[in-house]
């Protein structure tokens, strides 16, 4: 598919929900990315708002901590003139014994048009989507998916490599490095990047980047130094100690940086951190990404995170446009369905 064709080949957007990217046709991803692109200039206007979702209500239903994603969705909704209610600490009613679908149904009954859901359990957003009729956007469910992150990363790759016309990423090689197995960001990334034509290489120790990931359509490598020089994008992931189960985390600060997945943090860093030294192996034009929050000095050295190859802050800016597009398209589809 040539880039100029793909604009005409964009698919219509029939979905009330955005739950995941696995199995989504590339044409639908391009529809959303193209809409996001058309939204990207709203923040440069004298009035930084468009009235597309005026009178609509978006509820952030976060059962798991998040600042950046919640703020990004809130700003996205506000740029489209929607009202936003924040149910951070939504776990409170669950701790009183309410099920999450009861919580969601109750909030929908108050006249909400979209639910933005984050939960530590994989499949939580899909479950909620089954009991409500309003739009549902998955803002991260366990180790499963974080679709808007996958799309904003695809947008950022396209921007960094001059592929905004058509969002065709073919010929690009993207490394996802670190704690791939715990990462919903990685799963959504693999789905988005491969659908749009890029080649994805997951890199990490066998405990964090097991061969089984190959079933998602990517390559798996354990030697970062051997592949870094052939990649156009290096996406560094945080080590999610909190998801490594027994023997990791805990209250002791030292234990919070230990994991059964590798012998020591020092050894992990030596093999898989993007240090200044290792960053010199990057080929010209290659860019560095990170979904945040960064553990500076662990997976990513501060001078690299702040260096000329870093597009980390572009990811944040693009996230706003992508989330505006997701809200706009899903709320429109839900409005049509109930009309």
């Amino acid at each position, binding site marked *: 598919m040539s880039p100029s064709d793909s604009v005409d080949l964009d698919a219509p957007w029939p979905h009330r929900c955005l739950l995941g990217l696995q199995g989504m046709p590339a044409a639908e991803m391009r529809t959303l990315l193209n*809409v996001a692109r058309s939204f990207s*200039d709203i923040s440069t206007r004298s*009035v930084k708002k468009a009235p*597309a979702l005026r009178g609509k209500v978006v509820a952030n239903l976060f059962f798991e901590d998040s600042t950046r994603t919640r703020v990004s969705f809130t700003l996205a909704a506000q740029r489209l003139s929607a009202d936003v209610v924040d149910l951070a600490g939504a776990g409170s009613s669950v701790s009183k014994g309410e099920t999450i679908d009861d919580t969601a149904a109750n909030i929908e009954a108050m006249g909400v048009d979209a639910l933005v859901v984050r939960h530590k359990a994989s499949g939580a957003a899909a479950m909620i989507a089954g009991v409500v009729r309003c739009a549902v956007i998955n803002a991260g469910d366990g180790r499963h998916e974080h679709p808007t992150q996958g799309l904003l990363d695809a947008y950022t790759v396209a921007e960094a490599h001059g592929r905004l016309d058509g969002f065709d990423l073919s010929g690009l090689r993207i490394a996802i490095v670190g704690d791939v197995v715990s990462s919903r960001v990685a799963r959504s990334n693999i789905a988005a990047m491969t659908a749009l034509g890029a080649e994805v290489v997951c890199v990490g120790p066998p405990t964090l980047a097991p061969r089984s990931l190959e079933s998602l359509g990517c390559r798996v490598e354990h030697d970062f130094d051997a592949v870094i020089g052939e990649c156009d994008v290096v996406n560094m992931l945080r080590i999610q100690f909190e998801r490594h189960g027994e023997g990791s985390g805990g209250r002791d600060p030292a234990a919070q940086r230990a994991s059964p997945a590798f012998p020591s943090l020092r050894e992990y860093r030596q093999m898989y951190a993007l240090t200044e030294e290792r960053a010199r192996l990057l080929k010209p034009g290659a860019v560095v990404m990170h979904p945040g929050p960064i553990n500076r000095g662990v997976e990513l050295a501060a001078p690299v995170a702040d260096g000329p190859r870093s597009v980390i802050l572009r990811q944040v800016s693009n996230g706003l446009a992508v989330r505006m597009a997701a809200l706009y398209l899903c709320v429109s589809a839900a*409005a049509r369905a109930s*009309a």
Partner: protein
Amino acid sequence: MKLIADAAEVDRLIRQLADQIRSGVKDPRRLALIGIRRRGDVLAARLGEVMGIADVGSIDITLYRDDLSETGPMARVGKTHIPFSIQGREVVICDDVIMTGRSVLAAIREILDFGRPARLHLAVLVERPEREIPIHADFVGVKLAPGPGEKVDVRLVPQDDIDQISINPRG
């Protein structure tokens, strides 16, 4: 097909619109043209050429329409492109056809989000009578009142392969 204007006639109508605009605005030196996508932007570009005006923009009004459920599943939010400040300018909104007036209303709302022009005017190639909102065109190429089973088709180069205005059966 009922031919209303061929290429030569369309060209004459555009030049005539340009004359109306020139003599109808208070300060022609501060003129700027903004066309409504798709085809109003083509009209604006053609008027800009004829009048020697460099500040020509285009807007996509999808996000400013008054009913989200009418947007249709074919999500196509075009780019709005106004590469100049509209502050204190004589802005002429250009559209190929005015009918209900709702797109013009959406266009006015959107343009005001970019700044505060000194004056806003409206130029259309074809004026139809079916207004649903009290909005009127200041500069008009031709007035047409098609029958209930008919529609007006405007074709403009380079968006289309020829310049033509015609009335055709609906459907």
